[in-house]
């Protein structure tokens, strides 16, 4: 299996000395990195909320991302571009809720490693189901014709959907998630539960239901990221395993259970990975892991992490 194919397609430039970089190239890669980072944030934030509240580390999270992209591809031809994105995200969210209540729930009594093992097994199953249904070859989704190809900002041309629309939409979504977490009752329960799930249960909250809802929400975010990424990247079965490891890295860099950690971690890794494509292309895939190594040496719990959570 070729593992690099599904990686975000950085422009494969010749190796250039740093002095030859033009401002245009730099801006180009910077914007590329922000787009990439925004998608990372969506996926990592979903994983992080689940991890923070429930202590469940979901290896199938990457599969949900991949399923979002494939479902978007499937429905795009049937019901149009925008409804397809919405439907794909909602379906993945529902799948996540079913997944939690049927498979993950029996494991809360055990140590958290078991959920990692379980979701690793289900990730294998999801990958094979996807191969069976949509085949081994990559599929593509085109943006609808009324979306302009590129837009000029300050004399530079940017791909409209990828670099402008997607980034703005993600900012709106993240603002929505922030409001949900900070200004609603559900958000207060989630944040309190992250600190002490048992105490919240004593206060009369139906925690099993909350767990299902939060798992669904996290999965929905992964599915939405997948659906939004569908027009940008080649959609193929190896998508899941590539994204899940980087998502783990972002969670480690940002800190388990932290909203701002996921955002800073996602942007940091997205941007630096893109810039690495200019500086030293062979090391592109490794950028995130090196950042993780450095962060781990300096701040073992991640940038925004709290000591003693899930250890």
């Amino acid at each position, binding site marked *: *299996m*070729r*593992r*690099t194919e599904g990686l975000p397609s950085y422009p494969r430039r010749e190796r250039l000395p740093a002095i030859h970089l033009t401002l245009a190239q730099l801006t180009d890669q910077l914007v590329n990195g922000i787009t990439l980072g925004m998608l990372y944030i969506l996926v990592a934030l979903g994983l992080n909320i689940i*991890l923070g509240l429930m*202590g469940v*580390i979901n290896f199938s999270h990457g599969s949900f991302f991949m399923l979002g992209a494939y479902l978007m591809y499937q429905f795009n031809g049937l019901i149009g571009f925008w409804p397809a994105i919405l439907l794909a995200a909602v379906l993945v969210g529902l799948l996540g809720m079913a997944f939690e209540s049927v*498979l993950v729930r*029996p*494991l*809360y*009594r*055990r*140590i*958290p*490693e*078991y959920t*990692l*093992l*379980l979701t*690793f*097994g*289900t*990730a*294998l*199953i999801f*990958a*094979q*189901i996807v*191969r*069976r249904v949509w085949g081994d070859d990559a599929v593509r989704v085109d943006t609808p014709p009324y979306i302009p190809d590129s837009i000029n900002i300050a004399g530079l041309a940017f791909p409209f959907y990828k670099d402008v629309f997607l980034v703005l939409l993600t900012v709106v979504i993240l603002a929505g998630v922030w409001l949900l977490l900070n200004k609603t009752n559900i958000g207060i329960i989630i944040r309190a539960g992250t600190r002490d*799930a*048992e*105490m919240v*249960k*004593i206060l009369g909250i139906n*925690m*099993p239901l909350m767990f299902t809802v939060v798992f669904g929400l996290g999965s929905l975010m992964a599915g939405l990221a997948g659906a939004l990424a569908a027009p940008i990247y080649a959609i193929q079965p190896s998508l899941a*395993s590539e994204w899940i*490891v980087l998502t*783990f*890295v972002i*969670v*480690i860099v940002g800190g*388990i259970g932290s909203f701002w950690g996921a955002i800073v971690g996602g942007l940091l890794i997205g941007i630096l990975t893109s810039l690495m494509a200019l500086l030293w292309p*062979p*090391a592109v*895939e*490794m950028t*995130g*892991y090196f950042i*993780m*190594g450095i962060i*781990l*040496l300096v701040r*073992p719990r991640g940038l925004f992490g709290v000591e*003693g*959570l*899930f*250890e």
Partner: protein
Amino acid sequence: MTPPNRARRLLLHPLLWTALLFLALPWTAGSDPFHGQWSGFVGIATTMVIFALFASGFNLLFGHVGELSFGHAMFFTLGAYATALYANGFNVTVLGAVLAHGKGDNMLVALALSLLLALLWAWLLARIIIPRSSGIYFSMITLAFAQIVFFTTYRWSDLTGGEDGLQNVARPTLFGADVLRDSDHFYWFAALCVFVALCVLYWILASPFGSVLHAIRENKQRARFLGYDVDKYRVNAFVLSAVFPAIAGWLWTYFQQAINPDAGSVEYSGNVVMMSLLGGMQTFMGPLLGASVYYELQNEVSQATKYWEAWIGVVFVVFVLAGPRGIMGIIDDVRTNGVAAILRNPFKREEPVEPTFDEALKPLDESPAVSETGVR
């Protein structure tokens, strides 16, 4: 009538059963020595014993210290590449300096190089990771560090051959005799090497050092209170558990006569996790049985469907949910309760004997959180 205690202990000794398993594997894999047909599918048996060692080394950390590493394939791939590079030779320029080496045929030197490389990397990682993490955090971090090794083998084409890897690795000569070219001979060679390594592993686990590891698995804090330097023991266990995958990688390169970056991928790391759990993770025999069952399953299912991984995933998920003690757990149940009791009540809830070293996440629908005397 039960045999005397001493004889009984000898009969139930895991190393005896390991030896029997290795003797039996070529038969299960399809060859039939009684009719002069040795070759059969002995390659599958060789794969089984090599992965038995790989999984056992991984299980030293997972089953006996309670730390789930999701990146053990990095030691396997380091051992494998060290061997292939030694055997094939290389010629690269690093920062202006030319590193070159001709072909090598001494397999003991290859083994030493594999071990050296894996030990250095494991020691470096252990110093970084162990004091800073445990639990699921540890799993994620080992997975990420394994990716560094994977992408190095993938991208450093000058040295590692990139995606295609290194091919045409010659089988080594055994003290000058060219006998390992034959796959049967190689099976017995690999089985012998693995058996010796497993004896060392058994000795480690049965030593006082092994007992401390078990104590750490059961309760880290109590082990610390007893005066053991827990982190030091975990570092040592981590480094030791890297040794066996490196030996397995050494055998793997000579067996396959080629190596590619896949050997260090997430899939390989995950496979040994699955083998350990399928076999029974807190036992010595578990990973050995798990590796055999895994490849037997793969062999059978992949003939029926090209989506065989899904079925392995289903078997794995069923074991995680219903029988986390694995095949050894089932054997144990049968031995303690008898077949009749198991058949009478086959869906008895199997309570796993496992540590609960994460006190932060209590079961939600069990035991009132408020005691008689007030909030705990």
